[in-house]
């Protein structure tokens, strides 16, 4: 019986050792570590600077652009943009943050992810670095704030004293895509007009649906759609000062927005479009199945590719039929803020952190921003946004420049992932007939309030 005892002791010892190792990761409450104001000396050894983003055309464009241009300055550096499916984007980054070890140096975060990353100490505080190396006056203040500031900036305002944790990588907003051959060259100016034009177009052209927009319950698809309509009809997502959602989101304006979305817009969409997101909306437009569609500008490039479209055999033919315009206004002219910022992983080596800071400084230069625009990116510097390189690169780029002063973002609090899931699932339920619109809106307000009120730890968190 000696051996079983020894085996038991060995097993117990291993369990204790592994437990100690696991316990060792609890290193107290986190806060974002500071990046140096001056870029430390860069290595001359071969180095791979890794990004992580979700899989879409701008990610591939960034890798090609950075390897072509950044290597002119830093020949020993290779840029690798790792991609994950959109639905896994948040999980892929934050599970590595949870392990306190990342295989990326520059995480590209959605603007709303900043709060979670900052409060957990996952990304560097680059306030001092920005002060010393970045010309902040070159940007619309809200763009600089949206992709880097925490706590969040109010719409259109940047707190000069707030800390910055990221810099803009890719700007974005929704564009209205409309069929010039079906509804005319002049895009609708108000939301109500847009709905009636879509209604008429659908009636006049059997087989073509009036509208196409994001309705899926994955990522932030349905939530962004509701938030857009909410903003246009004068609603608010919450009162950020009092952290109140209940009674704010589901006030009269919020209910009107939900009514417009579910009862006026949804009947104009294709049957079974309740799980559509970026690709499905693009497919509907490219196949000539929608009169008016809404999509992110950065994802619209493929619409002009004759290989992917049935609207024409050349780019010019497609452009004869497709028009791009800023969103119509109604009670307000707000548009959703999209795009992402780049940040520095707190778990990268100091050598790679230094390289990441150098890359950010390089990327935010005026001439590089214009080159990024020419390469298919959406820059954030005002001079680049107004440059011919950007405005002439794509027919929808002017939509972005015109939309910048109209942008509004969602919350970027640490509870963002849960807030957006609550909104996504409930809006998706309302759009697909699984809930009444008013019930869905009231449930969003109640559940989101519950999340914000229970931020302090207790049992059953997350249910």
């Amino acid at each position, binding site marked *: 019986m000696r051996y079983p005892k020894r085996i038991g002791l060995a*097993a117990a010892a*291993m369990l204790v050792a592994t437990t100690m190792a696991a316990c060792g*990761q609890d290193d107290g409450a986190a806060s974002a570590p500071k990046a140096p104001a001056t870029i430390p000396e860069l290595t001359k050894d071969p180095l791979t600077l890794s990004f992580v983003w979700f899989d879409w055309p701008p990610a591939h464009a960034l890798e090609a652009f950075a390897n072509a241009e950044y290597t002119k300055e830093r020949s020993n550096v290779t840029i690798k943009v790792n991609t994950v499916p959109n639905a896994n984007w948040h999980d892929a980054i934050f599970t590595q943050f*949870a392990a306190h070890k990342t295989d990326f140096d520059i995480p590209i975060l959605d603007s709303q992810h900043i709060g979670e990353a900052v409060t957990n100490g996952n990304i560097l505080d680059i306030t001092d670095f920005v002060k010393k190396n970045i010309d902040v006056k070159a940007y619309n203040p809200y763009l600089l704030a949206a992709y880097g500031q925490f706590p969040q900036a109010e719409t259109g305002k940047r707190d000069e004293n707030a800390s910055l944790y990221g810099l803009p990588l890719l700007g974005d907003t929704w564009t209205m895509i409309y069929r010039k051959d079906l509804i005319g060259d002049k895009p609708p100016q108000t939301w109500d007009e847009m709905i009636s034009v879509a209604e008429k177009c659908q009636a006049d052209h059997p087989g073509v649906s009036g509208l196409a927009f994001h309705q899926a319950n994955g990522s932030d698809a349905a939530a962004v759609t509701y938030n857009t309509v909410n903003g246009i009809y004068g609603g608010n997502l919450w009162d950020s000062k009092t952290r109140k959602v209940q009674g704010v989101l589901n006030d009269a304006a919020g209910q009107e927005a939900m009514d417009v979305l579910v009862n006026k817009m949804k009947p104009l969409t294709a049957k079974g479009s*309740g799980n559509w997101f970026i690709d499905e909306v693009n497919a509907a437009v490219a196949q000539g199945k929608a009169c008016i569609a809404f999509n992110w500008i950065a994802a619209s490039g493929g619409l002009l590719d004759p290989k992917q479209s049935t609207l024409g055999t050349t780019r010019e033919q497609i452009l004869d039929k497709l028009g791009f315009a800023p969103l119509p206004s109604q009670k307000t002219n707000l548009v959703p803020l999209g795009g992402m910022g780049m940040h520095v992983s707190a778990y990268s080596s100091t050598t790679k952190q230094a390289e990441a800071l150098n890359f950010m400084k390089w990327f935010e230069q005026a001439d590089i921003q214009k080159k990024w625009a020419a390469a298919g990116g959406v820059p954030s510097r005002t001079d680049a946004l107004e440059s011919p390189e950007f405005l002439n690169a794509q027919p929808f780029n002017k939509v972005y420049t015109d939309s910048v002063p109209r942008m509004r973002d969602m919350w970027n609090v640490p*509870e963002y*992932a849960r807030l957006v899931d609550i909104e996504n*699932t409930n809006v998706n339920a309302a759009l697909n007939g699984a809930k009444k619109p008013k019930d869905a809106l009231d449930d969003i307000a109640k559940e989101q309030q519950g999340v914000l009120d229970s931020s302090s730890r207790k049992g*059953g968190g*997350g249910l």
Partner: protein
Amino acid sequence: MSDPVPLTTDHPGQVASATPPAPGRSRHLSDRRLTVAFISPALLLLLAMSVFPLLWALYLSFTDYSATRGGPAHFIWFENYTAILTSAQVHLRTLTTLIYVIGAVTLQTVLGFTIAYLISRRTHGRGLLTTLFLVPMMLSPVVVGLFWRFMLDAQFGVINSMLSSLGLGQVEWLTRQRTALISLIVVDTWQWTPFIMLIALAGLTAVPKYLYEAASIDRASEWFRFRTITLPLVWPLLLIAVLFRAIEAFRLFDLVYILTSGGPGVSTETLSFHVYKVAFLGFNTGTASAYGILMVLIVIVLTQLYMRYLNKLKED
């Protein structure tokens, strides 16, 4: 020089302890030590990869720990368990999972056994047919989910295209409450019916032929032979297959993730999908651990009850 060790023996079970160490082997390396040496790597791997994570999850389930927020884990005892067991959200997902498990496993059992019965009656091409039927089971659930998602697409999918050509209207397979859950059951059935079929086929081919011959001599009807010979002999094996499928279906995640993302709303969110959201959207690790432990407990208790019934069936 010692005598050569015999390669065979009339009593193989007694050889291991009675046989002296082979020539060249160290005197200290007895058979028992050798056994321990061989078992240890697998045992250590099992402890590190299965036992420790389970115990660690059990510990975390009594705390408010969050993997991303860091900081020490505070003991909150049974608060996570109480919250889960009393949560209306969890009750809703339990009902969805239950409907799914019962629907999918029942359908798979009926279809799997029927196919196996029909194949077992064939003398020619049985191997080829069995292999063809097994193909869906060999595919990754993610791949299966993706191509069924395309096939079930209301606008561009081949299923609706076929329905249209038959003069039937379009069906919103994945975006309506009832059809979405039915679609999940159908896709899971498409993939896993072969598993039940395979086990049922093994049971059917093991039924002694002389029983059927005796029944034929007694001029027993086809139905009588099926009811009194085939079914009773295959039943225990079939129940084991049902048990495996029920456990698998209970923890369904991948098909939901790919096909419906739990929608419309949360109407196809299973327990596993909900645990994933609790664990990774808010990183409520303590709650997610308790949720997982409860799911394991449910499976263990139900399996025990099931095994007892199976043993009783054997004894009878």
